[in-house]
């Protein structure tokens, strides 16, 4: 099958992989973050291509609106904010290469193994209702465990950001008296 969908797939795949290479190799961490933006958008595009609309929007909302903004905040709030030599040093090349190659092998084997049945006719249907139903029934426990984990992380962050030493005034959000 060759058609516009295939062309779009290869364009999106090239965007995703190409910008991912930039994320790994660019020395400037802000540029790496911008490259990451395009990687996330490429992945979201791939989700749209397989009609996973909810997943695509979640990808953009969580990764672009959350993770990427967090990374940029971390860079902006560091004290070397104005220096251009913000570096993204490269360590552990060999172990990283070994891990990546192993992972690639496993994924490639799974992808070409006959475990996937290719359906010729696919009817696309709305996914949101089904996802919500599964989260509230079959996957309720993982869902709740994840939310407890997130709550713990939230409380931990609030605790860490408040100095409890008496000589430092509390950075409270209250009105100054």
């Amino acid at each position, binding site marked *: 099958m060759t058609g516009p969908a295939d062309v779009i797939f290869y364009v999106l795949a090239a965007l995703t992989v190409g910008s991912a290479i930039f994320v790994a190799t660019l020395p400037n961490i*802000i540029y790496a973050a911008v490259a990451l933006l395009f990687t996330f958008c490429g992945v979201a595009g791939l989700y749209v291509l397989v009609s996973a609309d909810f997943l695509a*929007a*979640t990808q*953009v909302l969580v990764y*672009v609106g959350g993770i990427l903004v967090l990374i940029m905040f971390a860079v902006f709030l560091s004290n070397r904010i104005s220096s251009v030599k913000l570096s993204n040093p490269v360590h552990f090349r060999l172990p990283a290469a070994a891990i990546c190659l192993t992972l690639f092998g496993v994924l490639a084997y799974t992808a070409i193994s006959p475990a996937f049945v290719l359906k010729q006719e696919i009817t696309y249907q709305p996914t949101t209702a089904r996802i919500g139903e599964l989260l509230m029934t079959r996957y309720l426990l993982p869902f709740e465990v994840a939310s407890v984990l997130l709550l713990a992380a939230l409380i931990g962050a609030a605790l860490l950001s408040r100095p409890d030493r008496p000589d430092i005034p509390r950075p409270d959000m209250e009105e100054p008296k």
Partner: protein
Amino acid sequence: MMESLAISLVNAVPVLSGVPLWTITLLIMVMVAAVVLTFALTYSGLATYVERKVAGDIQARVGPNRVGPVGILQFLADGIKLLLKEDIIPAKADRFLFVLAPYLVFVGSFAAFVVVPFGVGLIASDLNIGIYYVMAITSLVVVGVMLAGWSSNNKWALLGGMRAAAQIVSYEIPVGMALLPAVLIAGSLSLQDIVRSQGGLFGIFGWNLFHNPFTFLSFFLYYVAALAETNRTPFDIPEAESELVSGYHVEYSGIRFAFFFLAEYGDMFVVSALATACFLGGWHVPFLDAEALPALWGNLFSLGVFLGKTLSLVVLMMWIRWTLPRLRVDQLMRVAWKYLVPLTFFNLLGVSLWLLLFHGKGIPQMIASLFG
């Protein structure tokens, strides 16, 4: 939807049957996108004129009155001026990101127009995840604003960008939570479905605004939180002329500045359109069902109703801007995290309980059932 449109077009015009279907679908998509963008930009231009007129009225002066009758063509003059202005990129700025940032803001802001339900059949794409899509795509704006602040290599721009990002990220939570009651009542994320769920015989009382006390509160919570998300007074800390000069776009000029400026007005429209669709009945008016009218008149009528409601909310935003003073940055965060977030969560619980206890019936429906 586009594909079915393309199929019906091919059926109507047999000459087109030689052309592959996807090219026709693509062409229709491009045309729809062009129409929506043209509308959005015209609206944004006119809105800047109205803003200045409203400001003039509130401050007891005339406002723009030289270009065209009562100054209505002022926005065209401004647009031409911005187009012809020299495009200045500061020498110490990061050129690539400086150029990229306005596009991200512009795209994030105007992509949301795709799912705005302008009328019975007037929606660029009735996405199944409408509201969620708007929440997702507007997060591009945050990245754009932060990049603009950083790449300008200017202290004020950087502070403005960080403030803007912190503000948008904080207020995204109450905005989402305040919209959820409408989703719960309609049982769908599609904006067109949410609008349809508010029709019926009750007229104005069929709107989600009057569904139950919690949705009534929810509308106001949404409007306040969304006002903050558009970074406008009284929540315009990121721009705060008196302390930050002009915030993240201080180094921008000419057409690049216009991108930020238009995106702000686009945001205002999207926010007001969501409020209209989710709480004010969208294109519904009492005693006249637009869907029962012939297609053309129904669409035109519902378009008028929807724009009327939405633009009123936009003008209300301008009114608020020129009436209220600005909050301080710590007050701003306190409003979001200590008041709006708990209130919207409480509201969400309230609406869920209400729907559970009264089997999804609103107060008007229950009163109506009392009288048989």
